[in-house]
């Protein structure tokens, strides 16, 4: 195989076939994919299905702790998981830029395989396109996923009620700061790693412990603030977060200070928010902490009465302020 991606790799001819067979099929290794039919076919268990899609354009492709491949699997897996569904199948669409080193693509594909295997999802179908040099940024990836919701589970951001507790599965801001730390002109030394991780096992564990949980959200773009504001607004309630109980690494806090970011706006790719009734909160927290990637979980706030869908922060100085949503863009292309 060539060592760089050429336009011919997207032409539908022999070079494309070689790329698919030697890289995608060989690495992903799924039986449905191996059949090379235009559509994957598989058995779907009974029940309601959940489906989600997301496109990944992060720059750079490789950053501390993860890469675009891990992100592309985890992001879609987590979106499906927020519905309570067990993620099962993924499709993968690649937009490759002419000239991309095939070794880079292989690293990304291996990373996707590992993340998919960790999350227990099968990559069953895919697509490859190649664009002219200068018309892409190495690789863009789209993934779509399908999962099945267990009987009796009904979650929605509109179900939060006054008195409910807000759980956060770990430290805020790691992904955004890890990506930003690599950017030209912003390079500063940190050992912060992206938190990109599949959280479907965590959601399942929390649902086992607290079956009447209201909803889950993964606070990605827009950070904790957008996720909470969406829930408050959809449920017609207000939310109060206790600033002191929100876990943030010192290095992330320091980087946010330096760059002028609000850590509540910074993106996460391996954190889950859960809204659960107060009487199930301790059990949910225990389950979250016992699940992979949940050891730093905290109860960070609660739902209160109120109209307008406001989110407040009780600051460490004893004042209550608004947790505003990010306006405009903080930094582009972080996921």
């Amino acid at each position, binding site marked *: 195989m060539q060592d760089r991606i050429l336009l011919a790799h997207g032409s539908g001819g022999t070079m494309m076939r070689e790329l698919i067979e030697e890289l995608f099929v060989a690495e992903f290794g799924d039986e449905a994919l191996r059949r090379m039919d235009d559509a994957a076919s598989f058995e779907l268990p009974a029940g309601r299905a959940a489906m989600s899609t997301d496109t990944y354009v992060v720059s750079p492709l490789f950053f501390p702790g993860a890469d675009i491949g891990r992100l592309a699997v985890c992001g879609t897996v987590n979106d499906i998981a927020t519905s309570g569904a067990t993620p099962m199948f993924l499709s993968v669409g690649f937009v490759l830029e002419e000239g991309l080193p095939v070794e880079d693509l292989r690293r990304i594909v291996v990373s996707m395989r590992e993340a998919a295997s960790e999350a227990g999802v099968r990559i069953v179908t895919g697509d490859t396109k190649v664009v002219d040099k200068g018309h892409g940024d190495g690789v863009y990836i789209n993934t779509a996923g399908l999962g099945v919701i267990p009987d009796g589970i009904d979650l929605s951001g509109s179900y939060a009620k006054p008195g409910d507790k807000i759980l956060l599965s770990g430290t805020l801001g790691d992904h955004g700061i890890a990506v930003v730390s690599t950017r030209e002109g912003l390079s500063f030394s940190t050992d912060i790693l992206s938190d990109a991780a599949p959280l479907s096992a965590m959601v399942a564990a929390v649902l086992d412990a607290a079956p009447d949980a209201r909803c889950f959200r993964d606070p990605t773009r827009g950070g904790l603030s957008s996720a909470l504001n969406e829930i408050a607004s959809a449920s017609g309630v207000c939310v109060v977060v206790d600033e002191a109980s929100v876990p943030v690494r010192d290095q992330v*806090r320091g980087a946010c200070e330096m760059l002028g970011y609000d850590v509540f706006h910074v993106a996460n790719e391996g954190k889950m928010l859960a809204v659960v009734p107060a009487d199930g909160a301790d059990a949910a927290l225990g389950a979250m902490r016992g699940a992979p990637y949940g050891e730093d979980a905290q109860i960070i706030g609660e739902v209160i009465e109120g109209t307008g869908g406001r989110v407040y922060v009780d600051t*460490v*100085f*004893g*004042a209550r*302020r*608004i947790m505003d949503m990010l306006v405009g863009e903080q930094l582009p292309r972080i996921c």
Partner: protein
Amino acid sequence: MDLNTGFRDPEVAKRLIDSIAATSRTPVKIMEVCGTHTVAIAKNGLREVMPDSITLLSGPGCPVCVTANRDIDTAIEFGRVPGVVLATFGDMMKVPGSYSSLAREKADGRDIRVVYSPLDALRIAADEPDKQVVFLGVGFETTAPTIASVIRQAKLQEVGNFSVHSVHKTVPEALRALVNDPEVKVNAFILPGHVSVIIGLEPYRFLASEFGVPSVITGFEPVDILQGIHMIVQQFESGRAEVEIAYKRSVAPEGNPAALAILEQVFEPADADWRGIGVIPGTGLAIREEYADLDAAKRFQIDPPEVKEIAGCQCGDVLRGVVLPFECRLFAKSCTPEHPIGPCMVSSEGSCAAYYRFTDYGRS
């Protein structure tokens, strides 16, 4: 690095808050004149923990906000000159001028680029020799020395395709204009820490000696700000009026002589037009004659349109502390951070944006 100790220690903050409440008896209006203070006060909810006797007002401390329409119109005209790359700090992009904004000009195809430092603008000039790079110099004494040094560097390196449009402003004489303004009812100033790192204490002395206004140079962490307020209240209650420094870890009374020297070398005082306040003599920084070839206004013949003020916008009054952000008729109605009408809502350091983002004043 633990950022929750020292200048953010909630216990230290609590003691200062208690002491302020115990000391303050006479109603006092304290104005801060730095956008970083504006945001820090709102974000940490410090207004809410003040006793009823203390009112914290925001003044003309956001460099983007105080930039007059005329100066924005002029920048837009530079951007329209064929072959010009207009380089600017990002905060200026969305500020509305009389008829357009830099963001809209960029969408219309003008070559307008956001830079983080004037050095980036100089680099663009080196990388793209067939373009003329105009850097929009906005800011107070804090940013102006860096821009002065870039102007000097461009001169030394004989960079022929780089120039600066200076709309820099200096703080002390603007404070004089405020205390002379009968509409402005301010009893004390929280003075800007960063500006004071450069200029020191002396230029503010008149506030105490001529006007009897207690003024304290203050840092930006919550404990710094509370300490500044505490010192103001102590002065006020004991009948003293002095200019003091609560930010001694960064500010020396004489300022930063090296930065002052380069400011003096490249710039000279000029009149400056402040939004909401008008022209204040000597508060601008014009590029000196010996650097005239780096002055965009002398390099390009442009003809900005007649200035049109924004209908209904009270940013001018907000900037003087005469109207609180939520008292403006447009606040949180037609003017929001997503769809800002006036610059105080556009800029992340603007007082309207700070009120909107961190409080629910003015919203049902």
